[in-house]
């Protein structure tokens, strides 16, 4: 799934979009998706991800560039002929129809015979465990049930591509997590291609084959979740995905897979060079809180250590968060698993911390 297949199923080719002729909402978007992939567009609001989805669905036209579906340009095909299923943020279930009528709608407008229709509606409802609710109106359903019906309606006419626009945004946390797995399993079972838009990074990491991180109208990084989290390509991605500690400095020495960075406050740390190539460059080093170590026996031999002062200890149940002052920053966080015999650091204590050079990434300065 990592590299795009020879013949992409969905393709954005140098797509640009402007609403007012003055600013570009989407800048030079290039994206290729193989068949069967679950791709998530992740980004803050206003980053252009929803616009991309709307262009793919046909509700917005690209100002420049070409969008191809299965090798054919679809710029001039109206939405109803694209055969793309779509799940909307507010579900958009037709309030004047029953659940079964909602599901029958796409089959009906395609002129399917009535007998086939009923069987397929029943199958689709059973697929989302809503078989008993066919006669209800959307207003009589709970949020999670509506979500399932919307999903079933987008799938009932067997589209090969399904778009989802923040479909779980209105659900509470527990239900959202449950639905994430259900959607993921449906995707695997049906082999459909899914483009999923969200601003929730956990959702993106949990569900996707690949995640495209959007910011400022561009894809900042397009990678599988683990790569995105562990090897962010720039400071925006590092900051947007997961928690991270940032330390500013300049490159003191550089090798192929190791850079020595002198922080503004004078300390020296090790890092992996990502966006830096030469000595003297400004850089921002990013370290995940759970990769910071304070027990000397776990330190990487030969790695630099740095002094830290504990400011606050927060008990979080499954883990401990320790906020400390490092190199003049008050918001450096270390996260340790709550395991038997784990040490609780009391505020005021000074100690040495360190990390594996692979886990500290020297990125572009913000």
């Amino acid at each position, binding site marked *: 799934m990592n590299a795009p297949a020879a013949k992409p199923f969905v393709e954005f080719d140098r797509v640009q979009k402007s609403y007012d002729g003055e600013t570009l909402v989407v800048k030079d978007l290039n994206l290729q998706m193989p068949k069967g992939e679950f791709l998530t567009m992740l980004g803050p609001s206003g980053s252009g991800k929803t616009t991309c989805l709307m262009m793919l*669905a*046909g*509700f917005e036209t690209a100002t420049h560039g070409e969008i191809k579906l299965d090798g054919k340009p679809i710029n001039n095909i*109206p*939405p*109803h002929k*694209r*055969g*793309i*299923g*779509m799940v*909307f*943020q*507010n579900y*958009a279930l*037709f*309030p*004047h129809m029953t659940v079964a009528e909602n599901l029958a*709608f*796409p089959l009906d*407008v*395609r002129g399917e015979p009535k007998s086939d229709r009923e069987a397929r509606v029943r199958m689709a409802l059973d697929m989302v465990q809503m078989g008993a609710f066919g006669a209800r109106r959307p207003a009589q359903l709970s949020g999670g049930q509506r979500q399932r019906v919307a999903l079933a*309606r*987008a799938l009932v*006419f067997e589209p090969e591509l399904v*778009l989802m626009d923040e479909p779980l945004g209105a659900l509470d946390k527990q239900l959202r997590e449950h639905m994430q797995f259900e959607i993921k399993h449906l995707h695997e079972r049906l082999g459909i291609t899914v483009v999923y838009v969200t601003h929730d990074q956990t959702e993106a990491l949990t569900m996707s084959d690949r995640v495209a991180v959007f910011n400022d109208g561009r894809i900042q990084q397009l990678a599988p979740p683990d790569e995105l989290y562990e090897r962010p390509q720039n400071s925006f991605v590092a900051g947007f995905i997961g928690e991270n500690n940032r330390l500013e400095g300049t490159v003191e020495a550089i090798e192929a897979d190791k850079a020595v960075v002198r922080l503004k406050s004078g300390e020296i740390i090790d890092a992996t060079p990502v966006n830096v190539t030469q000595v003297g460059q400004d850089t921002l080093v990013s370290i995940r809180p759970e990769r910071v170590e304070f027990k000397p026996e776990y330190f990487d031999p030969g790695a630099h250590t740095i002094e830290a002062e504990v400011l606050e200890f927060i008990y979080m149940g499954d883990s401990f968060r320790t906020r400390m002052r490092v190199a003049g920053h008050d918001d450096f966080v270390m996260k340790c698993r709550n395991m038997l015999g784990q040490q609780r650091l009391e505020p005021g204590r000074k100690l040495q911390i360190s990390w594996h050079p692979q886990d500290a990434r020297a990125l572009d300065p913000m």
Partner: protein
Amino acid sequence: MTDAVAAAAPTTRATDGRLTTADGKPLKAALARAQARNKRRAFFLVVPLLLFVVVTFLVPIGQMLSMSVNNSAFYSWKDRDTGDTIPLMVDLRGWFNENEPGTEPDEAAYAALAAGLAHARDIKAIGQIGTRINYEVSGTRSLFTGTSRKAERMEPPYKEAILDADEEWADPEIWAAMRSASKAFTLDFYLAALDRTRDADGNIVKVDEERAVYILLFQRTFVLSALITLMTLILGFPIAHLLATLPLRHSNLLMILVLLPFWTSLLVRTTSWIVLLQSQGVVNDLWVASGLIDDGNRLQMIYNRTGTIIAMTHILLPFMVLPLYSVMRPIDPSYVRAARSLGATSWTAFRRVYLPQTVPGIGAGGLLVFILAVGYYITPALVGGSSGQLISNLIAFHMQKSLNWSLAAALASLLLGAVLLLYWLYDRLVGIDNLKLG
């Protein structure tokens, strides 16, 4: 642990299973007492409105309904000076009660008539009596006043004496009219409002072809109102949709344009249609100038049904646009998008997804415009000519010109009944709680 829960619970269950407050009073009573003060205060706030509605709406409607069955002109006379009510035509009414409708009036009947006429003349009530019978048999007012002058000096046999005074008294129609007028309350005005009358034998029959106007006018009123409602819907729907979908700064301006007619006097708007549509008016001039029609064939667009339709459609348009707008505004564009993505053409998406969601607005706007149109008076009076008159113009005629208030009240009551019937139908078909006015 159990104790803590029991102490914390604000309510407990009494032995009979009803909820009580912590100190053992019934919960329902406590709630009613707690809310009583607020309810009282809320009631005092609506008292002025309640009184206003009773005085200006319910009382007049009640008066109208009682007026429509009031038949007292032949029955009693109210003395203006003393305020006493004096019964009229007592003997004649007694004769009508004793004899079947259609009985040939005998000497006793004529004697009673002579006595009644003399008495009525004596107390100056003869004009009222004559007017009442004149409603039903036209041209009889002078018959009553003329004969009553001689009635005092009449000698038996009264039949000859009265027929001597005027041969017309032999007309059975007059006797039928007097019989129908001889009861204090009657539904005969409703018969008249439906172009029906009673023949000499008391059977309900249609009135003569040339006098039958009311059913025709009711029909015309309802057909024209339906047509005007349809026109406002056709014209108003796209405007309302535009208003609901435009960005706010543009839609505000458009909304002002829609509301502009409300800020102009009804009379000004109506007369400006006269200026525009008359045969030497702006529209005709433009058509002649552009060569669409020649000068000799200027179109007659005002003082007829066309004028009524155009002017009323314009005036009632906002009443259609506003309810539609209030229904369309909250319809999320994602519904139509969803329909499109599910494979519907834009027309199918409109017809099967958007339109059904605007039904409450169409219903509210339609009902509002239709009911306003059914009772519209000024515009048809000014631009309707004779073919564009509606039933309300005839009601006004009976109120102001013919002074047959009972008939006017009967016509108005029928109109009210028709509108209530419409409400009922709407409630059955669409549901009144589906109505959305704003």
